C-alpha cells in the first residue's frame, strides 16, 4: 500500500512540474488523450547565473554569428530552389489550394481615410523574420485531433512549420533548439504550423514577407484575446444585473436564477456563469487588407477587432469564408524577395497621404 | 411648486443639489427643445418661457439625432417637428449646437414658419433628401427657409 501511493505521488509531482499545455495532466491518474506533435516541447529553460568568462562569452557570440551566416546561405539556397522558381510550370493555384500563412505581431491602430473622405480605423500587423522551418508531407503529418477515424486514408493536407523572430539560442531549452538545429536554422521565438496542400510546399529556410498577401484580399486572423481575469456575468456575458434600488440588496451585479426545478433541478451544462474571461484563441475571419509596407513588412487591416493587446502574436492565413475567398491566384506558393517592389501598396479605395487633398464636385 | 418659484426669483442662492456633471444631452422623451423658426405657435411658446416637450421620437432607438422627426407638446397642442441641431457630442465635421433646435412642420413636411433664424448643419441637406425618398412627406421644403448653413 505504502510504496504504491508513494509511486503515485511521485508520478503526480513529476507531471506537475511541466507547465506545458500539451503535457497537462487530466487528473492524477489519467493518461493524456491527445499525443502532441513533436514540436510541442517546453521552450523556457530554468534561468541560472552562468558566470562565464569573457572569452567564452565571445565564443558563444561567434558561434551564433556563424549560424546566422549558415542560415542566410540556406535562405539563398531556398530562394534559388526549383520548387519556388519552376512553380508556374508544375503546379497552379486553384481555389481549393491551401497556402501557408504568416506569423505577425499586432503593433497598434491608426486611422486611414478613404477616397470619399470616410475615416476607417485600421490595425497594423508587423511580419518579423518569418521563415519556413520545415514542410511535413501528408503521409507523415499526424494531426493531434482526428474527427474522422479513417482520416489517415483521406488525408490530403500536409503542414508547414513557420517560425518568427530570431532569439538567442542560450535562452531556450535544448529540445526546442533541436527543432531548428535539425534544419540549420537559429531558434525562433514563435513557432506555428499551417495546414497546407502538398502543392504549396516550400523548401526549408524560405523567408516569408508581408507581400505573401495582396492588398484587397481578405484574411483570417487567429490570436489570443485580452486576458481579463475572473469576471462576473455582467462583464463576461453582458447580463443586465439587477436594479440599483427598489429593495435590491447585495444582488446588483449577480446573475439571478440559473435554472428551473423539477427534473432540471441541477445546473445545466453551458450555463453562463462568472469565470475566467479572455486569454482564449479566437479567429477573426474575413479581414480586408488595406495597405502593405514592403520595407518594414507591415500590413494594415480594416477594423480594430483583432483579438489581443498591442504586441500580441497573430497567425494570418487566407480566409475560408466562401464569399470573401481569393478569386484570382495570389502569389503562389509565396512571393519571393524582389528588389524593385514599390515601397507601399494601397487598396483602391484608400487615400494615400501623399496625394492631393480630396475635393467633391457637383454631379451633373 | 414653492421651490420652483423661489428658484426663479433667485436662482443663484437656491440651486438645488442636483449633479451638474456633463451629461449625454440626448433628445429623448420629455426633453425640452427650442423652436427656431418663426411660426406663430413656436414664437409664442418660446416667448412665454414654455418650450416644447418631446413626447415621441420617430426612430428605432427612441433617441433623436439630426434630421429625426419628433412629436412635441407645445402650448397644449401636439405638433411634429424636425431636429435641426443637437447639444450632444457629434461626429467629426458635424456641428454641435448649444441648444436642441427644432423646426415645426405639418404632416406633409411643410414648415409652419417662413424663416429659420439660426444656422443649421449642411449634413441635414443629405439626410432630409434621403428621408424624403422613403416617406410620403417632402422634408426638403425645410431647407428652402433656412438662412444659414454651417
Amino acid at each position, binding site marked *: 500500500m505504502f510504496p504504491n501511493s508513494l509511486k503515485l505521488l511521485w508520478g503526480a509531482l513529476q507531471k506537475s512540474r511541466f507547465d506545458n499545455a500539451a503535457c497537462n495532466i487530466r487528473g492524477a491518474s489519467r493518461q493524456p488523450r491527445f499525443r502532441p506533435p513533436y514540436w510541442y516541447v517546453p521552450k523556457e529553460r530554468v534561468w541560472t547565473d552562468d558566470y562565464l568568462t569573457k572569452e567564452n562569452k565571445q565564443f558563444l557570440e561567434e558561434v551564433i554569428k556563424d549560424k546566422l551566416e549558415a542560415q542566410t546561405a540556406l535562405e539563398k539556397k531556398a530562394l534559388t530552389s526549383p520548387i519556388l522558381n519552376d512553380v508556374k510550370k508544375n503546379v497552379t493555384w486553384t481555389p481549393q489550394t491551401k497556402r501557408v500563412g504568416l506569423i505577425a505581431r499586432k503593433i497598434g491602430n491608426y486611422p486611414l481615410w478613404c477616397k470619399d*473622405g470616410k475615416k476607417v480605423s485600421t490595425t497594423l500587423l508587423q511580419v518579423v523574420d518569418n521563415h519556413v522551418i520545415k514542410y511535413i508531407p501528408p503521409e507523415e503529418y499526424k494531426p493531434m485531433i482526428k474527427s474522422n477515424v479513417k482520416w489517415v486514408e483521406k488525408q490530403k493536407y500536409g503542414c508547414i512549420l513557420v517560425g518568427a523572430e530570431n532569439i538567442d539560442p542560450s535562452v531556450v531549452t535544448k529540445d526546442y533548439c533541436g527543432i531548428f538545429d535539425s534544419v540549420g536554422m537559429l531558434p525562433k521565438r514563435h513557432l506555428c504550423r499551417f495546414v497546407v496542400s502538398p502543392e504549396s510546399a516550400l523548401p526549408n529556410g524560405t523567408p516569408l514577407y508581408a507581400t505573401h498577401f495582396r492588398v484587397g484580399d481578405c484574411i483570417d486572423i487567429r490570436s489570443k484575446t485580452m486576458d481579463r481575469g475572473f469576471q462576473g456575468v455582467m462583464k463576461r456575458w453582458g447580463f443586465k444585473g439587477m436594479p440599483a434600488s427598489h429593495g435590491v440588496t447585495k444582488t446588483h451585479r449577480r446573475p439571478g436564477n440559473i435554472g428551473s426545478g423539477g427534473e432540471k433541478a441541477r445546473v445545466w451544462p453551458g450555463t453562463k456563469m462568472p469565470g475566467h474571461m479572455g486569454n482564449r484563441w479566437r479567429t477573426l475571419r474575413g479581414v480586408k487588407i488595406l495597405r502593405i509596407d514592403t520595407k518594414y513588412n507591415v500590413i494594415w487591416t480594416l477594423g480594430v477587432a483583432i483579438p489581443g493587446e498591442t504586441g500580441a502574436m497573430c497567425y494570418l492565413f487566407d480566409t475560408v469564408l466562401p464569399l470573401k475567398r481569393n478569386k484570382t491566384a495570389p502569389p503562389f506558393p509565396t512571393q519571393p524577395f524582389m528588389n524593385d517592389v514599390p515601397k507601399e501598396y494601397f487598396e483602391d479605395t484608400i487615400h494615400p497621404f501623399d496625394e492631393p487633398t480630396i475635393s467633391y464636385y457637383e454631379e451633373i | 411648486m414653492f421651490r420652483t418659484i423661489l428658484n426663479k426669483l433667485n436662482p443663484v442662492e437656491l440651486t438645488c443639489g442636483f449633479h451638474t456633471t456633463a451629461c449625454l444631452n440626448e433628445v429623448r422623451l420629455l426633453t425640452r427643445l427650442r423652436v427656431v423658426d418663426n411660426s406663430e405657435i413656436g414664437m409664442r411658446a418660446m416667448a412665454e418661457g414654455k418650450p416644447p416637450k418631446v413626447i415621441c421620437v420617430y426612430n428605432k432607438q427612441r433617441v433623436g439625432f439630426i434630421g429625426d422627426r419628433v412629436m412635441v407638446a407645445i402650448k397644449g397642442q401636439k405638433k411634429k417637428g424636425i431636429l435641426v441641431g443637437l447639444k450632444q457630442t457629434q461626429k467629426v465635421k*458635424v456641428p454641435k449646437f448649444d441648444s436642441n433646435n427644432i423646426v415645426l412642420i405639418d404632416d406633409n413636411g411643410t414648415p409652419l414658419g417662413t424663416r429659420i433664424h439660426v444656422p443649421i448643419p449642411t449634413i441635414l441637406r443629405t439626410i432630409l433628401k434621403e428621408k424624403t425618398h422613403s416617406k410620403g412627406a417632402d422634408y426638403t421644403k425645410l431647407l428652402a427657409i433656412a438662412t444659414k448653413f454651417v
Partner: protein
Amino acid sequence: MAVTLRKSTELFTVAKWLTRRDCRTLSSLPEKAKLASLEVTEKAETSRRRPKKVNPLLENRHAYPEFLPDPNPKWRNSLREKLERADMLKRRNQIDIPEFYVGSILAVTIADPHSQGKTNRFVGICIERKGCGLRAEFTLRNVVDHQGVEVRYDLYDPTIHKIQVLRVEKRLDDKLFYLRDALPEYSTFSFDMDPEILPEGTPVPINPVKVELKPKPWLERWERQELQGISNIEQYLTKKDKVRRELRKTPWEKYDLMKQYRKTIPIEEQTDIWSEVNSQLQQLQLARKKSTRKRTFSAPKTQLG
C-alpha cells in the same frame, strides 16, 4: 580630518597624516576652520553648476504636440509611431497645417459633399486640442446668429483644404470649455475676419482676458477646476460649493513625481522623435514664412474675446 589631505605639498600631507591620530583627540577647532575654507570652494563650484541647456529641438513640443505618442506603455510601439509620423509629414507636405494653440482663432475650409458649393468654411476659436498622431483633433467654437456652434475637425483629414490662422495667441488655460457657459460675446467672431500677422520672431502672445460666466446652471463645476480665465465665478458660488471645493482639492498631486512621469514622454525619447522630424518641419515652416511675407501686414488689434 580628510581635509588634511588637501594640502598642497605632499610631504606635509604625509607628515600630517602620520600625526593625524594624535591630533584628533585635541580639539575640533582646526577641523572646523578647514571646513569653512572648504565651503568657499564648494560654493564656487555649486554656482558654476548651472542647469543644463535645454535642447532647442524640444521647443517643438508646444507647436506640434501631436507628434509625441501617447505615454501609456500599453500602446507604445516604436515602428508604429515611426510610420505614423511619416504619414503625418506626408500630409503636412500636401497642405499647410500652421502652428496654433488653444485660444487661437482659426478658419477651416473643408470639402463638404453636403453643402452647395461643395466646400464649407468655418471660423472659430480653438477650445481644445486632443489626441496624438493621426488621431489629432481640434474643436472650434463660434456664436453664429446668437447660436453657439462647435465643430470638431481631424487635423490630418484629407478633406481639409485649408487651415488658416486668423489670430495666433494663447489663453490662460489649456481647455476653454467654460466658453460654453460664458457670455456669448466672448466666443463671437465674424466670418470675414482678416488674418492678423505677427512680426517675425515675436513669441506667441498670451491673451490675459478673463471671461464672465452666465449664472448657474452650468455644464460643469468650473469652480473645482482651478481655472485662470474666469473672472466672476465667486459671485455665483454658494457656501456649500465653496466647502465642497475645499474638500475636493488634492494638493499632494502637485508633488506626485511618478504621476507626472507617467503623463510625459521623457527628454531622451523626445529628442529622438524631434531629430527625426525636425528637418522636414523646418522646411515646411520656411515655405510658410515665404507665403506669409507676400500677404499684407496688419497689426494685432486688442479685441474682446
